[in-house]
């Protein structure tokens, strides 16, 4: 599901404001700060665990979930919609006769959870009849009663609605004052209160927070009918409302003065810049197609990493479980055996579920595995994938990578992408140093259109801002730029990576996978990075 479908599913942007069931039931804002008593959650979980064991399950996990979301949607001087939703219930997953079974209920009683556990066991038994191989679960030690919380400073759910409305209307006003014709801005706030218990002896209580503050500014030339938009340069983050404090020390200024943001975002400042840059786009030079050296800002490169490394190394895709929907992967298991040269020798990519501020950071995944960080690509060579407990044995591993996630208590957990990030270069290098060495290149910031084939070979990416680089200097803005890549050639063309002082997180808030489709949120860190001799096309067309 992409963002448009997600908004449509929420009834946002439609004429009617009635809210369909997708995002849970609508609640009053003050209920967003409530939690379920820990003892109640444990009682529900124990009811499920003992009922499953009693019904003959060899393994059971119970997830008691309360999923909260708040969306604030504005355009120009208007608040279009404010939505608070809550979805609460219990999902029970079991192994019986060597097969998985799953059932879920929104009735928060021990009896209902026990009944769900028995139903899940019956479904597992039915599935076992057609199963060719029993589930093999990598061992995971029980951790007893533990808890984990996203290290936030200010719970966004506790911030008054008025403060959020005031911020977005200030953003819109600043953009309009700076010359925008239109501006849309939103806040998406998520809190997952997740309790996990399993027959391994774990009772894990987690409180996960995420925030995203996108906007889009449009400038129009009425005479020519041309219009251009410039989206915000923020990243969705695993942070609290403090992300919107706009702290000066977290600003990153590019060699030509474009301001990007690390762990703190100044939305008003970015909206003013967006209004100017959207106007500038109307008269920017249309790119000459050809081969260029690309200098890619982290706020752009994150999506390229997501599509061309994150997805192809999902083990379920590699094995064929996503063949009918998201697709398979070119990075087949034999490529790990032969240490396939995925990228140039300076390319080191790691998977991670722990990095502070990232969307993927949790203490434990949705099958109770303590999270970690591990290499995927070392010195350019493919070394590993992303696995869950029932996949670890396929890779010869004795433990899961902790990649299990479900987007609701009512959906079954499966393998989802962890944070996948590019390690900074070890030689000191700023973006300015990098650009100074480029003869004929394009500097790209921000996300644009993105498309990649079902095995993750051929991709095309646009961006938000494009600048021509000539003889080591940024000369002028460009438009109509998109680059086309073949994944291994692209990463093998990586010739320079800035150092850790330039490292920033980008992210995807609504990454879709599975049938029925589930969304997840994931971050991608990188510094500014250079790729040589990349094929750039011109995307301008005439409708006559």
């Amino acid at each position, binding site marked *: 599901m992409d963002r448009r479908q997600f908004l449509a599913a929420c009834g946002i942007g439609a004429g009617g404001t009635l809210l369909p069931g997708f995002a849970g039931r609508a*609640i009053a804002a003050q209920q967003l700060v409530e939690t379920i008593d820990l003892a109640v959650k444990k009682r529900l979980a124990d009811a499920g665990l003992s009922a499953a064991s009693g019904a003959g399950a060899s393994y059971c996990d119970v997830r008691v979930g309360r999923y909260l979301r708040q969306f604030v949607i504005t355009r120009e001087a208007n608040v*279009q919609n404010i939505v608070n939703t809550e979805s609460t219930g219990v999902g029970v997953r079991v192994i019986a006769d060597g097969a998985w079974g799953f059932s879920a209920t929104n009735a928060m009683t021990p009896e209902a959870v026990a009944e769900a556990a028995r139903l899940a066991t019956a479904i597992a038994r039915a599935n076992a009849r057609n199963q060719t191989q029993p589930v093999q679960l990598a061992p995971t030690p029980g951790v007893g009663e533990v808890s984990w919380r996203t290290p936030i400073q200010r719970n966004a759910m506790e911030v008054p609605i008025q403060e959020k409305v005031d911020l977005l209307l200030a953003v819109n006003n600043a953009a309009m004052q700076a010359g925008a*014709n239109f501006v849309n801005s939103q806040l998406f706030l998520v809190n997952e209160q997740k309790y996990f218990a399993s027959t391994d002896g774990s009772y894990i209580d987690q409180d996960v927070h995420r925030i995203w503050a996108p906007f889009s500014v449009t400038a129009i030339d009425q005479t020519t009918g041309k219009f251009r938009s410039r989206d915000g340069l923020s990243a969705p983050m695993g942070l609290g409302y403090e992300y919107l404090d706009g702290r000066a020390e977290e600003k990153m200024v590019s060699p030509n003065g474009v301001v990007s943001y690390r762990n703190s975002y100044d939305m008003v400042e970015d909206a003013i810049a967006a209004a100017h840059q959207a106007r500038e786009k109307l008269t920017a030079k249309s790119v000459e197609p050809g081969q260029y050296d690309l200098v890619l800002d982290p706020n752009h490169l994150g999506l390229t990493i997501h599509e061309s490394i994150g997805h192809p190394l999902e083990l379920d895709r590699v094995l064929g479980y996503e063949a009918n929907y998201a697709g398979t992967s070119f990075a087949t298991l034999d490529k790990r055996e032969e240490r396939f040269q995925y990228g140039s020798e300076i390319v080191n990519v790691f998977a991670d579920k722990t990095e502070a501020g990232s969307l993927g950071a949790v203490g434990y995944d949705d099958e109770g595995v303590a999270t970690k960080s591990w290499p995927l690509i070392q010195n350019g060579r493919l070394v590993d994938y992303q696995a869950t407990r029932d996949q670890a044995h396929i890779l010869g591993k004795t433990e899961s990578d902790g990649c299990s996630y479900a987007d609701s208590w009512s959906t079954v957990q499966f393998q989802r992408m962890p944070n996948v990030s590019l390690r900074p270069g070890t030689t000191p290098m700023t973006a300015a140093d990098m650009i100074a060495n480029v003869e004929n290149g394009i500097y790209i910031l921000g996300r644009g259109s993105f498309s990649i084939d079902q095995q993750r070979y051929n991709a095309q990416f646009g961006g938000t801002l494009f600048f021509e680089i000539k003889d080591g200097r940024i000369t002028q803005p460009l438009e109509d730029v998109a680059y086309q890549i073949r994944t291994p050639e692209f990463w093998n063309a990586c010739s320079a990576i800035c150092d850790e002082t330039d490292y920033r997180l980008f992210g995807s808030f609504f990454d879709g996978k599975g049938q029925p489709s589930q969304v997840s949120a994931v971050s991608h860190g990188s510094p500014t990075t250079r790729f040589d001799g990349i094929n750039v096309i011109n995307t301008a067309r005439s409708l006559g």
Partner: protein
Amino acid sequence: MSIMTESEARTILEKVVALSTADECVAQLTGSVDGNIRFALNNVSTSGVVTNTELSVQVAFGRRVGTTTINEFSDAALERAVRRAEDLARLAPENPEFMPAVGPQTYRPTATWSDATAAVTPEQRAEVARASIAPCRAENLIAAGFLDDSASFVAFANSNGAFGYQRATGMDYTCTVRTEDGTGSGWVGRNLKDISGFDPAADIQVAMRKAAASAEARALEPGKYTVILEPAAASGLITFMTRYFDARQADEGRSFLSKAGGGNKLGEQVFDPRVNFINDPWHEGAETLPWDGDGLPRERRALVEDGRIANLNYSRYWADRQGQPVVGQPGNLIMLGGTKSTTDLVRETERGILVTRTWYIRMVDPQTVLLTGLTRDGTFYIENGELRYPVKNFRFNESPVIMLNNIDDLGRPVRVAGNNSSFTVMIPPMRIRDFTFTSLSDAV
């Protein structure tokens, strides 16, 4: 309780509306039973049934709106829901674009229900999976697919006297078949209101044939080609474009339907004269609810007539502001065509490329609706009316506006499967000149 009768629904809705002390109140009940089965690597991976019934209550004090949703229907719960919506409305900022609830309406029912689809059992779903997997196993092919079936109802009432109730069913089946060595891939999809017209044993043969025939694909140079787009291939581009038939966007100057100097392209010739798009809730095979999200009756309307922009979609607010008639937002899209099948179109093609399906379509430039995406699961070179050999998949960069000015021929519209949308879409297969492929993909 998931599928309520009209009188059960009416009783609850009338209670809710009567409980409200706000200036106006709109209550909506929705209920569904959704069943699914998923399979991959010739094994069932997941299957399940989700039932859900929900009541949404939206109230307004002046231009301040509050909404709440519950899934229990005792008198006390209904009262709580109404009071909570009222509390939210009092706290909400004014919406300057607020439009009052519609008055009493007459909705002409549409044939959206099938008893057979509503009665699907877990055993039937398992049989669909078996009918897909067994022939693949027998021929050393690998199937991955998904069947989703649903029965649902929607009912609403408001304090201005409008009321509607209708039930609907639907099913969507998709299956991707791959050769064991991963060099061939084929696809088939079926989307129906009535599952009794679904024959998975016949459909799977299409995907199997394409999988086997697409192995060892040859590389052609990217460039402009005559293509035959099967309905599933054309649908992704066309439905993407029709999202931008919004009058407000066009009037604001940020759509391909905006005119230089201001205004929109209503009445202008934008496509080949053979292009006709209609929205029609009663269209046989594409039936949809006879009212929209605001409770406005839907009508049969041409969006594009003989290549001219016949209508744009106005929200109630924008119609009111622009002095336009208020019409329900569409719930389906039908592109009219002829009577030929895809096979007929292939037979009449001297040289071209058959595209089974398109994938990962994204907007590159909204100014021209330039879209990029890829072919997938069965791409073949045609010569003298016959499929000669499989070709490697292509990336395209093409605008459906340009594509629909390069029409050679249109076939018989079919209901499109796997489009991930609540919109029902019927699209014909089509032969298009000068379709722009910009690079090759190694993906199978």
